[in-house]
């Protein structure tokens, strides 16, 4: 059973080097991140200076983080057990094919579609995250690779059998018709049990991919990850709602 709010999330064991194209994209994305971190640290320095008279951290932090943009953390060995956390890299090959990624992207968008509040999951790279996940050299991830590859093949066979086209070629209603049969393990017919487990895993991974981005957090209305001058507890309307006012 998942502990939704707890930090340690288990995933499992080990392996090698990144795909050139994907690796490059990743590195570019991370430069943006490092700049963002430096910015945030600068903000924090300002916030602290307000509250404290002494020459508290601030500038030093910003320097530390911005140092990251030019080559990361010199102390970290850059190994899997001592990774550079400021300029992280994906150190394993990504294994899914273009076709698999296209099918996965379509499925991710069925699971979390675009609406007036936020983009769909594929626009936030959920399928790329799942590629990263199933390619990772740990035991649990390897199991997911088999399950998800097998499920993607099944999805296209099922789509062709029912509607005469690959999953990506189906209308939204047709996609829903397929997904309705596999969206709940408990209710899925015996012949759909393995497909339902595939779907459940993709839904979990899509959910992680989507909600852990800045856009996903904004959709939920998450308030945090920025320095606050004080912590005042819940606002009055919350206390009222809970009968604690």
């Amino acid at each position, binding site marked *: 059973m998942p502990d939704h709010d707890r930090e340690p999330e288990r995933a499992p064991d080990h392996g090698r080097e990144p795909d050139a194209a994907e690796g490059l994209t990743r590195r570019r994305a991370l430069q943006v991140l490092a700049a963002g971190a430096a910015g945030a640290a600068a903000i924090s320095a300002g916030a602290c200076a307000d509250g404290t008279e002494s020459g508290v*951290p601030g500038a030093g932090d910003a320097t530390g983080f911005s140092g990251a943009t030019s080559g990361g953390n010199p102390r970290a060995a850059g190994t899997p057990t001592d990774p550079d956390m400021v300029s992280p890299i994906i150190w394993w090959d990504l294994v899914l094919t273009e076709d698999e990624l296209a099918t996965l992207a379509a499925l991710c968008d069925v699971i979390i579609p675009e609406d007036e509040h936020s983009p769909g999951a594929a626009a936030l790279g959920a399928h790329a995250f799942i590629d990263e996940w199933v390619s990772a050299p740990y035991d649990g991830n390897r199991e997911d690779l088999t399950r998800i590859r097998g499920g993607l093949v099944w999805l296209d066979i099922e789509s062709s059998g029912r509607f005469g086209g690959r999953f990506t070629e189906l209308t939204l209603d047709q996609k829903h018709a397929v997904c309705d049969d596999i969206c709940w393990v408990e209710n899925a017919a015996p012949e759909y049990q393995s497909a339902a487990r595939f779907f459940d895993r993709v839904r979990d991974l899509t959910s992680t991919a989507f909600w852990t981005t800045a856009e996903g957090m904004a959709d939920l209305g998450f308030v945090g990850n920025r320095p*606050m001058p004080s912590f005042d507890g819940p606002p009055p309307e919350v206390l009222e709602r809970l009968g604690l006012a």
Partner: protein
Amino acid sequence: MAAYVLACHGVRVLLLEAGRDYDPVSETPMFQLPADAPLRAAGTADKPFGFYDATVDGGWRVPGEPYTSAEGVNFMWWRSRMLGGRTNHWGRISLRMGPYDFKPRSRDGLGFDWPMTYEDLAPWYDRTEAFAGVYGSNEGLENTPDSSDGILQPAPAPRAYERLAGKTCDGLGIPVIPAHLAILTEPQDADRLSRMLWPNNETARRVTYDSMRSRAACYWATPCGRGCSIKANFQSTTVCLPPAQATGNLTTITDAMVREVTIDARGRATGVHYIDKKLRADRHASAPVVVLAASACESARILLNSRSSLFPDGLANGSGLVGKYVMDTVGAGVSGQIPALEYLPRHAEEGASAMHMYMPWWLYGEQAAGHLDFARGYHIEFGGGQRMPGYGAFSGIEPLTEGAYGQRFKEECRRYYGSFMYFDGRGEMIPNEDCYCEIDPEVVDQWGIPVLRFHWKWSDHELNQALHMQQTFAGIIEEMGGRVLSTVQTDGARAILAPGQIIHEVGGVRMGERPDDSVLNQYSQSWEVPNLFVMDGGPFVSNADKNPTLSIMAIAWRSSEYLVDQLRQGTL
């Protein structure tokens, strides 16, 4: 902690660290999002508590440094190889042991008494809390000691779900009070505190003052487990070592894995052998006094590996008790979903990262009256709220959402966000002779050092306590109108977490009243080798439900003062 106190007293200290140099100020990934890390920062075998966890070359396994377990035993040993060790990522929960906790055998006939009382240690708790910066309040509850006036930092305001649980627990007779955590909620009063800690020592006062002034108060964001670049929480790398360094009396060598304490013909310690990990070469460091603080089991390992004709069973092991009576904390938990928290208006709930409130053990009376089938208490740590979504966000909610996907799934996630809670029990384990570590005769690590083999057996006290935890937590969740999501077990062996998993392993080098019944005296000094001390969790005689780090530090401070007195008297 010992390095800080000793260096402040003018003692020249050589600190040998088995891991690499580490600086939280420049290395902590404070604001990075999960999406910025590989695998959305999920835990892996390489980084079990997640990518950003402040653990280097560690976790449940250390590359090239195995340990073994006896058949059927699944002891989990968390280590890290970095300056400051596990203080970099710990939970910061800082609860004092109470008067009962020092004399458990006298109270109920089980386990062993400490060779000191609460009153003996109380002044050192005050000093440690003032130095580290611990928030909390004084509630005057049974066996839940108050700190002296002017010691604690102000407790942070309770979060919405903490207040809701508090209201429910009031009705159940369970006290919910401010937790004590080693996190600054306001800047330390450096002038007052440094004078209080070091009234007659100008150097110590100055370095402590400067260090306190360099620490900022919490800015109510980012997880403490990553470390803290603004030094708001306690890590020995930001709090103990910088002032020790500033005295000019501390020399640190990193990547130095101690393997053996050396002795002279009289059986006095002369220094240690260590492996220079970078050169893969053996080195010797000489010293008039040796203090082991390698973590409880690692210190036992060093002693057991220090064999000689004078000490054939390991150094300072005439009692045969080195490695014996290792304890962890009893852990069991239940999570639930609370409808009252659905669609709650969004607001900041990160706060000081960890809990602001907790429940101390409350059933002393029931226990004394014989109404419970376990002898010792536990406290409750709980959490939830509108936190930053991480790996696993909304995973496994299929049973709640009946397989929803598409727009309905998106809506369901918005609905359930912030409505999950968990309750974890942390309970006292009674030491027993089946829980110990010894040298595995067949296995060495990559440095050629024989490794530990662990043995373990819970007693019914621990198993029954774990069941009581789960039943209690399920009751709280139901009373809150919530849905219990965990399986509440009827077999204690299924409810309890694995030994070592709470990472509170202590004992193995216990202190006591007599040399035949303990390894150390009450000042953490070896009975047999007077210039040898152990100042980590090893000296623990019992393991109350109070998380051990604060007590480790307070005992180390008291023991270090004794060490300095002995040095001055010339007895060492």
